[in-house]
């Protein structure tokens, strides 16, 4: 039996990716907002009847007249003009059953393409709960295509769709008469096929939106939510972090006592365990941060936050549409920059790409929490505000404010400035699905641990090599690391970074940070562990307690300021090159971020020294 090529198409946020994950067993990102998918995704599965299917998940589109790069991908794949991709044998048009007024228009547009087409009426359970009754046979007759109810988030939600795929291929629907008014036709179909009792959920949503989108209370709710998010990162994670820290300490001690003294023991204890182990400690904080973000994503709150921030964004010369890419950049700038494809205006898109690296990615979190934990007292303000959480919130706020100022400057320089109106679909509120949350968190933990096991371990091993060789000459004074390659590189960099209060150890830590920012923590642990002279010293694992004995507060604050702007991330620069197809933009991004980081660190260090 030949393989069937199928493409999932539909309006944004109708559940295409959920259906894709259900059918193929993938774990592609799903979220309750438009624009979560910006590239075509490919998956394979076999139907119960034994037919092999190649399934494409395409970015959501409101129309085949593409207005943004992600919509162009959908249009081109459906039309068979996408480079290296044959036209699909069958289009499965996914429509949100709770929002047929909007989604049926696109279904009719797809029908006009003259390709075999099936309509998957997704979220049919939610529609029934909302009091909607859909006459499926009649809808099928009026649309002139097979209509199949699906539930993308339920294990057996695609049973009927699979049965359809096993049967004979559906026919090409008859084309609509020339000049058909699609809006009028949708209204006609809805009045014929759908009956709607007054839904309770609509009333609840209206009430919620009255508060959430209120010009005064809306921003207050947003600030409170973000504020508690950062408080939680410190308050909830500590017991787990202490447990991991203690576990790593015990492991280092055990290996230290089991292995005979030598180079390999130093590599494992000072390199791998001290370096990578100190990064693993931050896993609970990263997961707590992502748990909050996932809940906000799934609940449908994020597009409302984008709507609230539209005015603030317009001050910076951007539209609220830039909000979601910027928010994605809090996880990592790479997917954030990729999701700028949903922005129609090329200038807005470029500015968003340039400011996305300023959003505080999760790789900075270990550096922040290490320095805050080491130098900011653990005490409460006004009995309930954790000072450390407050400082973390401040760092995120400074980064956001800087991004808006940079965007304003970039837009101000832009002569062909035009006002863009934000037109955005607000999805229905949903109670986050615990299974999706658990899967999302598991995926984050897996990615983080994979990164530790590959990128971070390999870098700390290499750094250990650079910090251990060559050995000092006979009769040399001072720590052996001073004679090593790393020591020499650090001293070579020192004249550039000394005005910022950095010592040579920090300079060394900045280099592997180019590959992954959080490696700076592991690198500091390795360098100080080797520098301490006793390779089984457990202080190597308590980096947070060791740092205040080596640095002053101005140096710590200066390094924090450096990391707010930290330009060094090769992956970010690579994706900027890929998305803009311009080395010039890469040079501008790297240059301005370095200049900002240097200036901010310099000022912070010298101002802090006055007190």
């Amino acid at each position, binding site marked *: 039996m030949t393989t069937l090529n199928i493409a999932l198409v539909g309006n944004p946020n109708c559940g295409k990716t959920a259906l894709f994950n259900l059918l193929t067993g993938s*774990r*592609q*990102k799903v979220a309750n907002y438009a624009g979560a998918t910006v*590239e*075509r*995704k*490919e998956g394979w599965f076999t139907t119960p009847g034994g037919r092999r299917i190649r399934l494409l998940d395409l970015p959501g589109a409101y129309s085949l007249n593409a207005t943004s*790069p*992600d919509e*162009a*991908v959908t249009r*081109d794949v459906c039309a068979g003009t996408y*480079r*290296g991709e044959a036209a699909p044998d069958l289009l499965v048009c996914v429509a949100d059953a709770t929002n047929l007024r909007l989604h049926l228009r696109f279904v009719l547009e797809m029908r006009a393409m003259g390709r075999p087409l099936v309509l998957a009426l997704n979220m049919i359970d939610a529609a029934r709960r909302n009091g909607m009754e859909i006459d499926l046979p009649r809808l099928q007759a009026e649309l002139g295509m097979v209509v199949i109810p699906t539930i993308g988030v339920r294990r057996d939600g695609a049973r009927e769709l699979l049965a359809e795929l096993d049967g004979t291929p559906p026919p090409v629907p008859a084309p609509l008469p020339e000049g058909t008014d699609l809006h009028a036709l949708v209204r006609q179909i809805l009045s014929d096929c759908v009956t709607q009792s007054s839904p309770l959920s609509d009333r609840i949503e209206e009430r919620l939106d009255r508060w959430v989108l209120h010009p005064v209370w809306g921003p207050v709710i947003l600030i409170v939510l973000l504020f508690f998010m950062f408080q939680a990162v410190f308050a909830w994670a500590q017991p787990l972090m202490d447990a991991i820290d203690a576990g790593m300490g015990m492991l280092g001690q055990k290996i230290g006592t089991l292995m*005979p003294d*030598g*180079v*390999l*023991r*130093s*590599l494992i204890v000072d390199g791998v365990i001290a370096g990578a182990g100190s990064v693993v400690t931050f896993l609970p904080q990263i997961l707590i941060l992502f748990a909050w973000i996932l809940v906000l994503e799934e609940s449908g709150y994020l597009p409302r936050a984008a709507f609230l921030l539209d005015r603030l964004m317009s001050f910076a010369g951007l539209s609220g549409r830039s909000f979601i890419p910027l928010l994605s950049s809090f*996880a*990592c*700038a*790479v*997917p954030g920059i*990729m999701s700028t*494809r949903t922005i129609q205006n090329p200038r807005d898109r470029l500015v968003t790409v340039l400011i996305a690296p300023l959003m505080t*990615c*999760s790789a900075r979190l270990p550096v922040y929490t290490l320095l805050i934990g080491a130098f900011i007292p653990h005490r409460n303000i006004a009995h309930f505000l954790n000072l450390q959480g407050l400082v973390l919130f401040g760092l995120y706020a400074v980064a956001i404010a800087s991004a808006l100022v940079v965007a304003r400057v970039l837009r101000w320089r832009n002569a062909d400035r035009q006002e863009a109106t934000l037109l955005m679909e607000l999805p229905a509120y949903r109670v986050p699905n615990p299974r999706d949350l658990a899967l999302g968190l598991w*995926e984050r933990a897996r*990615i983080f641990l*994979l*990164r530790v096991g*590959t*990128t971070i*371990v*390999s*870098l700390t*091993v*290499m750094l*250990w*090599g650079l910090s251990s060789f060559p050995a000092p000459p006979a009769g040399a004074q001072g720590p052996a690391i001073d004679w090593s390659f790393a020591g020499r590189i650090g001293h070579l960099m020192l004249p550039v970074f000394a005005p910022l209060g950095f010592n040579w150890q920090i300079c060394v830590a900045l280099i592997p940070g180019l*590959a992954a920012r959080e490696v700076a923590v592991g690198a500091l642990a390795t360098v100080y562990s080797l520098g301490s002279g006793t390779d089984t010293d457990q202080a190597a694992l308590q980096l947070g307690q060791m740092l205040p004995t080596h640095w002053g507060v101005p140096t710590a604050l200066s390094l924090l300021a450096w990391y707010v702007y930290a330009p060094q*991330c*090769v*992956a*970010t*620069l*690579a*994706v900027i090159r*890929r*998305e803009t*197809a311009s080395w010039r933009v890469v040079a501008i991004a790297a240059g301005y971020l370095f200049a900002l980081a240097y200036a901010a660190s310099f000022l912070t260090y010298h101002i802090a020294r006055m007190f």
Partner: protein
Amino acid sequence: MGPHHIIQTVLACAMVLACGLYWAGRLFPAASRRGWSSMTAILRGLHAPVGMIHYADRRSRPRNRTGCGGCSGCADRSCTPGAGPDR
């Protein structure tokens, strides 16, 4: 220097070298592929186990990368560099 010191030094150097090769492969994939191609030829000449030859051969061929330089933040294993939108 005792034998365990020599073994430890050899193993430590091998680990550092392996990590160096891993990063060389990530930073310079084309050069790395040529290296793996030569390695495949050498292994064939030495009549090495088939698994080793297959492994080296697989590494010598271009493969679908995440296209983003390896951040892994997006967990997106299907975004090949050629799959982006036309510009």
